[in-house]
């Protein structure tokens, strides 16, 4: 296994820039998830690490060695593709052993590696089948098997679960996590699904517009998002945002209502700022205490309930486990838990309470 280090990595197609200088250090055995909306550059970054895309500027190191100009075949990394990219004309066993055959590994050694991997993944009954004769979940396993037989320096995953249905995706997610706990393999995992990112990652790298927005543990990103983008992207249902102007001791919202806050930094006074609060931190008050809000829509998910409210003319989502709200009338009273308020400055970056000193400055 290996550590991977990325220094000021840039990618441009002609004049069109896709990555604007990415720095990232991945420790040996770490599971890192690159997350972001489509077009944010996460897949490009992964493919550059794999060697499938050239480097415009900057450096990629695997185990301290610069690999910029190294062909993919010489980087000793394995990759699981979104489409699985199984070789249609080879059996499952041949698919899994192809890399070993290319490396001229002795036949019995290769056979043992395939057997071990297929046992781990429950693929033994299918070894003689072609990919066409497998279900989606089985194909996904073969793609994983193909990666693990090699014992590579690192695993790269490019949205490996997005072609599976929801139930299977949940199951495979757990299996990938188990496998990582088992193999302790350095892994880089690309997804647009924030749930996958939250559940799998040791560290999440949130990306947007070719720029890394925040790097941190899943709960870090959830509890202390570095900016509006991360705050909005992580969490479902998404965080509520209320725009307003910073005043002493609080924020004057657009509808002129006032939201009291502890200490508003001096340099923000009079500036446009955004308040954020997660739906589960909006408290519905049964006794009518708090701000009156109109209940527009109720979405029961079974586990909990999502409420769509209008507060002073602004939309507000609330998540609650309390089924009593299903009986509530058109008007409810809400309180925003002050200790859970997030404040974002005019440039969208977090004000205070952040683990990232650069973003607070």
């Amino acid at each position, binding site marked *: 296994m290996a550590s991977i280090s990325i220094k000021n990595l840039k990618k441009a197609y002609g004049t069109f820039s896709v990555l604007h200088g990415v720095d990232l250090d991945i420790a040996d055995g770490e599971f890192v998830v690159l997350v972001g909306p489509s077009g944010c550059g996460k897949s490009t970054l992964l493919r550059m690490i794999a060697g499938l895309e050239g480097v415009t500027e900057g450096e990629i190191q695997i185990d301290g060695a610069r690999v910029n100009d190294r*062909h993919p075949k010489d980087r000793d990394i*394995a990759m699981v593709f979104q*489409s699985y*990219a199984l*070789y249609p*004309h080879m059996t499952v066993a041949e698919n899994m052993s192809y890399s070993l055959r*290319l490396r001229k590994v002795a036949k019995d050694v290769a056979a043992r590696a395939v057997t071990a991997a297929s046992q781990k993944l429950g693929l033994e009954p299918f070894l003689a089948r072609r990919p066409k004769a497998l279900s989606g979940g089985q194909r996904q396993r073969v793609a994983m098997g*193909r990666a693990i037989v*090699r014992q590579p320096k690192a695993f790269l995953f490019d949205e490996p679960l997005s072609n599976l249905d929801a139930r299977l995706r949940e199951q495979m997610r757990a299996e990938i996590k188990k496998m990582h706990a088992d193999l302790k393999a350095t892994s880089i995992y690309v997804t647009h699904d924030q749930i996958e990112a939250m559940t799998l990652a040791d560290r999440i790298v949130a990306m947007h517009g070719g720029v890394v927005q925040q790097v941190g543990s899943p709960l870090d990103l959830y509890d202390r998002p570095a900016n509006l983008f991360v705050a909005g992207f992580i969490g479902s249902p998404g965080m509520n945002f209320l725009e307003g102007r910073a005043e002493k001791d609080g924020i004057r919202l657009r509808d002129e209502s006032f939201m009291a806050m502890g200490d508003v930094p001096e340099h923000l006074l009079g500036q446009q700022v955004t308040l954020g609060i997660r739906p589960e931190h909006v408290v519905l008050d049964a006794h009518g205490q708090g701000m009156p809000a109109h209940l527009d829509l109720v979405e029961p998910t079974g586990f909990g309930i999502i409420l769509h409210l209008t507060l002073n003319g602004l939309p507000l989502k609330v998540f609650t486990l309390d089924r009593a709200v299903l009986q509530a009338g058109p008007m409810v009273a809400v309180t925003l838990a002050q200790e859970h308020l997030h404040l974002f400055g005019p440039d969208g970056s977090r004000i205070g309470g952040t683990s990232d000193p650069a973003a607070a400055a």
Partner: protein
Amino acid sequence: MQSGLLPTIAHRLAVLAYVVFALFPLFWLLKVSVTPNDLLYSEGVRMWPSATTFEHYAHVLRHSAFPTFFKNSVIVSGSTAVIVTLLASLSGYALSRFSFRSKYWIVALMLLTQMFPLVMLVAPIFKILSPLGLTNSLTGLVIVYSAFNVPFATFLMQSFFDGIPKDLEEAAMIDGATRFTAFRQIILPLTLPGIAATLGFVFTAAWSELLFALMLINGNDAATFPVGLLTFVSKFSVDFGQMMAAGILALIPAGFFFLLIQRYLVQGLTAGAVKG
């Protein structure tokens, strides 16, 4: 969608008319080829002779140069098909997978070769091949036919390569293959239908070519089937039975490859029509 009886009948009749029109000339070829000489004139417009014979075929196969013509044509068309498919696999792959600076010019060049009158090349090619000893030689024909067919075959192969996901060779490269190994071991085996279609197209095209064969070949030894048949026609223009028997024989390889590639016709010609 439901349709009435009358439109259905009209539709079937129209289809029938097309089938008859398409097959009648070939049927006539077959009919005359099995009509004995003494019945040929007396039963001129009859749909089927009162007696049939294979004497024309026997004569063509035993006492004429047609077996040589046939052999020459098979050699020329076969070699051309193999060479062109080989070259077009490589260049089609390049057009499908790489984006490089002069790709636009290469495509333009290949399109150009599909547009200008090939008859314009008759004289210069003769002048070039003659001092090299490549006129009156099968090798010369193979070289010329290969060049003529490479552009279309390249576009055809490209469209087949386009249908194969890039992920596959990327996966192979990550598995430890060079690009060329991935091309040979992963991509080519998956393009077998395309390779078969290209072989068929090129074979048929080379089998049919007339003008350059006429120009570059004289004498029976290196004559291909079209040249041989045409010489035969101008020399023995009364031996209709034999000529048509020879014609049917010329049709056999083309018909065989047609059946082979029939499934890819629509795809192939569409690719050719759009790009070539």
